[in-house]
């Protein structure tokens, strides 16, 4: 280590000046890129505000109305009448829970249908994704043609929202939950398939080579070399997808594809009263319960340590 002579002034190669030089160089390099980034961002922001007419005056006019609307859909519950049953004439007393939820039985039937739709669609979608994900993984695909075809197929399945598929299926096979199930299954197959193949691409290839070394064919390489490694992740993602699909199946009814969605659409579009909150609340409770349940199952299946 050489000592620095303080009196000699800054030297061209002392640590600080070398650092400063390096720093300014680096800043210059980054400046251009950053300006470009910020410029592109501001441009996108400006254009977005313009095309969606997200202007302050419109917002200021709209915001109070939001609260107004939420005020009108709140239930008018009276505490002393809360648990009042139906009267002798079969009418519920206004202000009671029974009055608020007078269509409770209809809602529950639709909620159950919604959950079953999501479950069936998840199983079908996960099965399809399982079959598709191996040819769509770069490290496992038998050849690049199969890889590209299965990849593109999954991307198209995933790229189109469920409800558009539902629209098409309702047109093709008529109104009813089947259209919703198929729509959600197709979208899930794409979304899960993409995630599954990412897990596959991240799996260790050593067991695969081991199986190849003993004379196993492609299917056996997958079955013994890959599946045991990736299965915990697959299960966890499928459960997560189930949570999402419950949400999705609660809205495919908007286009007539079954579930609580049709009722939701009807009450929100036609009424400005407590029925809106009644249905919404049931949906939120269902979704939250399913979330909790599937989280429990995930920790049970793959262990806490795998969920970090």
């Amino acid at each position, binding site marked *: 280590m050489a000592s620095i002579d303080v009196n000699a002034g800054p030297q061209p190669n002392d640590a600080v000046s070398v650092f400063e030089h390096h720093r300014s160089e680096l800043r210059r390099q980054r400046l251009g890129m950053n300006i470009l980034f910020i410029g592109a961002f501001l441009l996108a922001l400006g254009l977005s505000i313009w095309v969606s007419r997200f202007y302050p005056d419109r917002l200021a006019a709209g915001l109070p109305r939001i609260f107004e609307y939420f005020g009108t859909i709140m239930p008018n519950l009276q505490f002393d009448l809360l648990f009042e049953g139906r009267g002798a004439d079969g009418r519920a007393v206004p202000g009671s829970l029974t009055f608020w939820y007078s269509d409770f039985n209809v809602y529950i039937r639709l909620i159950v249908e919604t959950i079953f739709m999501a479950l069936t669609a998840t199983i079908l979608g996960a099965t399809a994704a399982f079959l598709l994900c191996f040819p769509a993984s770069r490290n496992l695909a038998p050849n690049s043609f199969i890889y590209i075809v299965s990849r593109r197929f999954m991307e198209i399945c995933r790229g189109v929202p469920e409800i558009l598929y539902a629209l098409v299926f309702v047109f093709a096979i008529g109104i009813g939950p089947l259209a919703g199930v198929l729509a959600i299954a197709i979208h899930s197959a794409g979304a899960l398939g993409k995630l599954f193949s990412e897990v596959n691409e991240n799996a*260790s290839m050593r067991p695969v080579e081991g199986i190849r070394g003993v004379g196993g*064919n492609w299917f056996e390489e997958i*079955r013994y070399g890959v599946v*045991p*490694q990736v299965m915990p992740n697959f299960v966890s993602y499928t459960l997560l997808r189930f949570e999402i699909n419950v949400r999705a199946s609660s809205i495919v009814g908007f286009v007539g594809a079954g579930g609580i969605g049709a009722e939701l659409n009807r009450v929100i579009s036609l009424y400005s009263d407590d029925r809106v909150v009644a249905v919404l609340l049931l949906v939120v409770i269902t979704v939250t319960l399913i979330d909790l349940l599937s989280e429990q199952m995930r920790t049970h299946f793959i262990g806490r340590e795998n969920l*970090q």
Partner: protein
Amino acid sequence: MLAIKNLTKSFKTRNAVDNISLDIPDGQMVGVIGRSGAGKSTLLRMINRLAEPTGGSIIFDGRDVTALKGRELLEWRANCAMVFQQFNLVGRLNVLTNVLTGRLYHHGLIASMFQVFTPAERAFAIRALDRLGMAHTALQQADTLSGGQMQRVAIARALAQEPKIVLADEPIASLDPMNAKVVMDALRTINREDGIAVICNLHTLDTARNYCDRVIGLFEGRVVFDGPPSALTEQAAREIYGAEADEAFSESMTSTTLKPAGTEVPAERLTEADLQQRARAELLAG
């Protein structure tokens, strides 16, 4: 008998294996030595056909192995067991199932997809494990074992294949000296008792001297030594390991202090936490 004729594997700029010809009779224990990158691994992987040769041929019992395709290729791999440096076991399956994968070639697709194995195969696998002193771990998950134990399970898997020849690619390079001895002893016993030829890539001269009937030295893809261990002079060793004439050379230098490449985890693999986080975001996004 295994006959290798003018076997070559070329990459863009160089030949990993350069025109090698060898005859290996049944029941011989062969040690292949040389520096990292001398082509030892490529040679073994080509014999098993995990790597494709670019020239030459491999003849086993009068049959050209290099020309095999489809089902016949799988049959050859089933007959030619491979033991890997990193064991290449399926970590999440139990030890027994790992050994039973040695029988996969003999199974139909449905049976293998549903993990159906016959009682005879199970008994056979347990016996194979027992030969390596590993029967007590049969139901343990493979990734709970130590390296030495895993390698013994891998050898049991090779035994379950009922192989005609065993290839071992650096079987002890990832093991400590104690386990290395156990594994080499096991390979030697299989060679002696079952009369199966064993071709073993080794990093260290002393191991090759102690265990093998015949030593083959590779340097830059070519055979530079082929003979009994007793003929392996210091001059020959210098040539194999490419030591400069004035450089000090000792056999211990070739010993286990030289850790071969490939033991570290590749950098591009994501951690489990990363994967989970990404998946959650992507899934919740719909």
